[in-house]
């Protein structure tokens, strides 16, 4: 096989993978009404709530701690440069805009990739290996509706919420840095931040979070469903879920950032 064929095969495999993800995503969208409260089947919403607790509530401490660290690091690094030009106050702009547009959503997505994306893949992969998915099919239950869609609904709700929490902690950490270095009071810092960021910054960050949520759930679930073989295959699928969803999240981030940049220009 020459280099051109290898590249062609890689591109075809990549497109087939994204196509598979899109089909799975569409099936989840179609099944979503059956998971929602009141409209949905009994028990589904409860499963989605359990998933929200697992994806969101359990991830809260790590998201908060890492956001505080990232906020502090960002403020220190930019502060070190801006101080030379007597522009230390712009640290607040960098932290505020940087977190709402970029760092909050991407940091949250990467944490959820590692925690929940791998868990989705391991859970579904194990269900494949132990024939639980086959058992569902033979009972006329749709695994997409029964297993995947509650995770999808939970992630679509919880990951944007986690992003907002990440933004809050990151911005507060920036405030702590500014308080230590310039003695600025927290209310004044917050007022400055609210002036610096615009609604579109927050909305673009939230839109990214929703896209990241869809990527993480779909890649994790698809890697689980593609498991063939025994427990070692489950391990490989878990690694693959984290690597592929991280890769796709960053690609999607670059794509959306470029779009927003062109729109805002």
């Amino acid at each position: 096989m020459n280099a051109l064929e290898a590249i062609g095969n890689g591109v075809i495999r990549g497109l087939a993978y994204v196509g598979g993800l899109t089909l799975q995503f569409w099936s989840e969208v179609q099944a979503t009404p059956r998971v929602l409260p009141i409209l949905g089947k009994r028990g589904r919403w409860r499963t989605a709530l359990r998933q929200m607790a697992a994806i969101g509530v359990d991830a809260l401490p790590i998201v908060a701690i890492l956001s505080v660290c990232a906020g502090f690091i960002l403020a220190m690094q930019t502060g070190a440069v801006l101080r030379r030009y007597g522009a230390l106050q712009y640290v607040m702009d960098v932290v505020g805009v940087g977190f709402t547009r970029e760092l909050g959503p991407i940091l949250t997505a990467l944490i959820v990739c590692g925690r929940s994306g791998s868990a989705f893949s391991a859970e579904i992969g194990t269900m494949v290996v132990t024939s639980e998915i086959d058992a569902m099919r033979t009972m006329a239950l749709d695994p997409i509706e029964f297993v995947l869609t509650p995770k999808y609904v939970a992630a679509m709700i919880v990951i944007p919420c986690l992003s907002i929490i990440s933004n809050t902690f990151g911005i507060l950490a920036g405030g702590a840095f500014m308080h230590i270095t310039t003695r600025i009071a927290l209310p004044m810092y917050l007022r400055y931040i609210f002036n610096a960021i615009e609604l579109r910054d927050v909305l673009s960050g939230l839109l990214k979070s929703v896209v990241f949520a869809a990527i993480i759930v779909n890649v994790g679930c698809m890697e689980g469903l593609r498991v063939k073989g025994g427990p070692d295959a489950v391990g490989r699928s878990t690694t693959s879920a984290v690597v592929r969803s991280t890769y796709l999240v960053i690609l999607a981030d670059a794509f959306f950032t470029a779009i927003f940049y062109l729109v805002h220009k």
Partner: protein
Amino acid sequence: MADPIISVEGLTVEYEGKRVLNSVSLDIQSGEVMVLVGGSGSGKTTMLRHIIGLERPTTGTIRIKGIDINGCSKAELVAIRRSMGVAFQECALFNSMSVEENIALPLHELTDLADSVIEIMTYMKLAAVGLGETGKLMPPELSGGMKKRAAVARATALDPEILVFDEPSAGLDPIVAAGLDELILFLKHAFQMTILVVSHEMASAFRIADRIAMLDRGTLIAVDGKDTFRANANPRIRQFLDRVSDPIIESPAVQDRVRALAGLMGATR
């Protein structure tokens, strides 16, 4: 003779160019216990997976109650699946649910019965397989035999017409396996179910079967009543029944080399 409840015609399955099932045809009549036997890799489980509609054949048709399961509508497939219970080799109980939740699941999902009725039906199904007191336990807390019984209880939850077992006695001690055979016979007689069992345990097959079918390397080589099957002179069937092993190394050239190597090792000791 009445139309068969399960009809397999010319089922051929190929995976990546390798033929796993070779134009297999088999009819199973309503109310009979058919045991499908064969060695490891003979295609038993592949055939079962096609009969229960988990995979699509390369060629051939599978009709359940006269409906082609690969050409029917989604609604028809759901109806067929509701009339069929499957007990998998690995039991396939949902580990995140208790035993009674596992059994109640198809009732909750596929019927409009009230919760109180489902609770009673779940207990009855568990009691029928001798697990009346284990409903609150989680699947990992059950022994191998209890898991198999729980899987049977779940497979019979919707009172299916057809019950399918994949290697029911695999991994069980002879006493528990015999108990499972009794359970299969009880289900046949009490509920007039049509039962298809995939197995390689001949003692169990002769105990429960009305007819036995044998697959050998993807080809169906016999479909007989159990007495006829026992007397069948086909060399592969005789080898299977008399437990005669295949030579581990088939090639005479390789056999010669192994003998030479063994002699060499003997000389160096």
